[in-house]
Each structure stands twice: as C-alpha cells, then as structure tokens.
C-alpha cells in the first residue's frame, strides 16, 4: 500500500506585509481539521509563521510548503534569493539583517530562525548567496 501523502504549498511574495500570516493561518486551519495534537500544532504554527515572515521580509519571494504523512509533517521554505552570507551567525538569537522598513513594523528581533529551530524536531538550512535559501523542518506526529 502506498503511504498516504498530503501536500500543500503557498507562494509568498517579497515585501507583501499585508499578506503576512495568510499562508501559516491556512496551514494551521488544515492541521486542526486533520486533528493534529494541539501541542504539536502550536509549534508548527509558530514555525510556519516565522518562516512565512522571513520570506516576506528577507527573500526575493519564495514558497512555503507542507508535506504530511501519518507520522510526520515537513515544513519547507524555499526562496529564490538573495541567500544568507553567514548561516551560523543568522541562527544566533538577536541577529538580524531586517531592513529599516521591517523594523519600523516591529519585525527584525532576530528571533525568526532560532524560533523555527527551537520548535521543530529537525531543522536543516541550506543557503547560497545569489541562489537562495531552503529550510526544512520536521515535526514527528508519533
């Protein structure tokens, strides 16, 4: 029997602050309908919201994807640039390269990546300058 797989994806535009939270809210709604345990759901909610915001604030546009099997949920954030110069520095709490505009809106606390990492069971980040960044987060359901 083929393993059940559910896929969901949302394209997120750079700088579109008015859409902030739409993709993660939709993911959240679906996970609630799927009956995901509420503590896991809360962690996915936080991580997907941070990922979505990062795409809006830092990237040149990208995609937020969810892949689900009965045992695991994967959140994947994939953008088309600009890429992160120093990934280990970016993972430090309080480090941020957010623009003046983003900071004026209350973003740029330097907690985005650390929050994603903290809430996910597994966390992988690949980034190349001029190419883009891909983040993969895993959440165990069982």
């Amino acid at each position: 029997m083929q393993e059940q797989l559910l896929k969901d994806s949302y394209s997120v535009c750079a700088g579109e602050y008015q859409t902030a939270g739409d993709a993660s809210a939709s993911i959240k709604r679906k996970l609630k309908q799927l009956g995901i345990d509420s503590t896991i759901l809360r962690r996915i909610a936080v991580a997907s919201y941070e990922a979505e915001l990062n795409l809006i604030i830092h990237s040149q546009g990208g995609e937020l994807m969810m892949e689900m099997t009965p045992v695991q949920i994967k959140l994947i954030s994939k953008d088309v640039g600009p890429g992160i110069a120093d990934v280990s520095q970016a993972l430090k709490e309080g480090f941020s390269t957010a623009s003046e505009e983003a900071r004026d809106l209350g973003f740029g606390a330097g907690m985005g990546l650390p929050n994603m990492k903290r809430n996910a069971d597994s966390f992988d980040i690949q980034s190349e300058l001029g190419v883009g960044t891909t983040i993969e987060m895993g959440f165990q359901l069982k």
Partner: protein
Amino acid sequence: MNESRFHSVRLDKDKCVGCTNCLKRCPTEAIRVRGGRAHIIDERCIDCGECIRVCDHHAKYAQTDPLSDIERFKYRIALPAPSLYGQFKHLANRSLILDGLIKIGFNEVFEVAEGADIVTRAIRERMRNATPEHYPFISSACPAIVRLIRVRFPELISHIVDIRQPMEVAAMVARREFCKKNEVAPENVGCFFITPCAAKMTAIKNPLAQSKSELDGAISMIEIYGLLASNMKNFSLHTERATATAYGVGWANSGGEAMAVSPEHSMAVDGIENVIRVLEEIENNKLRDLVFFEGAACTGGCVGGPLTFENCYVAKSAVQALISGSDRVHPDEAVKASYLTKYNLQADRPITPNSIMRLDDDIVEAMRKMEEMESIVRSLPGYDCGSCGSPTCRTFAEDIVRGYCNKMDCIHILKDQLKIMAQKMVELAKTTRE
C-alpha cells in the same frame, strides 16, 4: 464525547426566511441553510449571539428563564450583571437599581460586580505564583470566548484562568450569607442571574469548567427592563445595597477586567472577530510580553450583549460615569483574604477541546478527506455566496466530504451542468429532425 446539548441560542422556524445573514457571520461556521431555513449545528454553536444580532427577521433568539420562574423558590436572590448599571443613564446610585430588583419580586440582591471583586483578587493570587510559560492568562469571564477557544484554539485551553466566573462566585457567597442571616435551608433559595447575553444562560445550564452551576436560572435584562425602570421611580424608598468596588463594576465594559486584574502587560479585545484575530497572534507566539488577555465576544464588552436594552456605547459611558464618581479602592484591599479560603473559587472540571472541526478521528482517513476536499474546492467558483447553504465554498466542500450535501447544491455548478444538458438536447433535437 457526551456533551450536554443545551443551547440558549435558538431558531424560530416560522420567522426564518433562509437568507444568508447569520450564515456568513457565525464565527464557528455552525449554521447551514437547508430546505429554505437555517439550522444550527449544536456541537459547533458557542452561543455568542452574533446571529441574534444580525438576523433582520428576528428568527434567532435567546432562550432564558421568564421572571415568573423565580416563584419556584420561597426566597429569591437577584444577581445583576455589572452591565445592568449601564442600561440607565444619569444613574446617581447603583442602589436605585438594586432596590428596584427587590420591588419586582426578589428578597435579596447581590452584585455580580462583587463576585468580580473576589475573582479579581483570586486571579491576582494565582498570577503571583505563575511562571512565564503560563502566560498569557486568558480570561474565562466570557463563556462564548471560552467555547470559541475549545473549538478553534484548543492549544490555548491551558492558558484559560481556572477560577470560577464572577456570577458563580457571587451566587455561592449570596446563598450562604442569606441562609445564615435568615436561618433558612439552601434549597429554599433561588439564585437568578440578570443576564446581558445568551452565553451566560448556556454557561448556567451546561457549565464547562464545573460540574454544576451555583445559579438556578438566568433572566434576560431586556425582559425585565421596563418593569425595573418603572419600579425605580420612587427615590425615597432606596436603601444602600451596593457593596462592590468600582473595579468590579468596571467588568461591564471591555477592558474593565484587565484593568482590575493586571493593569500592565494586559490586553482587552472586544468583538468576536477581533478576538479571533488576536488569539491567532497569541497562537503564533507573537505577543510575548502579554501576561493577561481579556476577550469579550460582544462589542464594548458585556454592555454590548444581545439581551441588553441600551446601545452599547451609551451603556459603556454610563458605566464609566458611575465608576468615575466612586472611590477607587482596589479589590485587593476590599475583598477579605478569608474569602479565598472560605469559598471554593477553583474551577473543578478541566475544559476539554471540542474536536468537531476534525474531518475524521483516524488520521489517514482525515488526510484522504482533506485531499478530496481540496480537489472539490478547486472545482468551485470561490464566490463564497452562500447560496448552497454553507457559509463559504471551503465549508461547502467540507460538507460534501462529510456527506451532508452534494456538488449540485452549488447553483453555479448546476447552471453550468444545465447549459451542457441544454446544448446536448438541442443537438439531439437536430439529429432526430433530419
């Protein structure tokens, strides 16, 4: 799950015309229009009363107890919600209202505002011993918001304050004091809440956080308004009956509870759609500094309840005027510490999530249904017109997957199908003629 099915919010079938006004406004998507009239899905309804407010045909109403119901008891205590004070403009003294309640048939009155004082002190004690992972504490005062959280934000249930509601605490204290003073048996005393909303009525008949309510019933504010107003005219008769602090009275308005409980790092939000928006942010961990959250389903807070008489803004300023004219003694000082041990203020039952939004209890089956739902959504027009009887195209797809309706209930799809059929008939007619 064995859920008691009592709901205060009801439908008058004869008045319902089957329009989409309530359908579109229900925050838990608990209404469907089928067979030309609305139906309320009991398991989803949180008794917020939005549908009562938006129905132009007055087909939605709140079931409360008639005033005559107090006659079941030899002794009757009235427990007016603080929002009752907002129903009368230029009120010099709360005792006028309290006196009026005696005149219309009660033996005693006890301000729920005083219950709010006791609850304020209890919550503050609780918060003193809390660590940041408890934050934010979420108020349990609005029963519709508590039910909303059960349905839409189950992961926030652990943040709900586990102290009984002011009306429950007030009833507990009032009954005990009355029995002691008059040497009567508790079962001969009826405690009746004077309610601004349907949600409180449901909370009494079908409590969530405790096994049984301390109250014997709820009487709608709007029902007694006229009678009460006409019994408030004789000023000379009034005796001083008001005992609550200005803070307790302030619970009538949005922000009043937050002001009493935690003036700093708190947030008060009114109007159920606004509350949903902020709960989403709490869920996303966006409000990290927040210690106390007060959410009221009604605009303006309890003064905006669907069973009130006065416009919520007028009522809000009337309450504000009453507060400004009173001494500012905080409940921490006004409420005796002994109350916290003498009475059981603790909620005695955990609030459980309501899993009605779940597509299926089995995750594999739920995933299959979700997939099917998504493919149906893609084939729908996305107008969210409500003509099918479901509030949005998404909910319609969900209803199909759950087996409650079928695709042809969508008038746009039906129209397309009819067009194709008509074309085929024309073609058929042409071929047979030849």
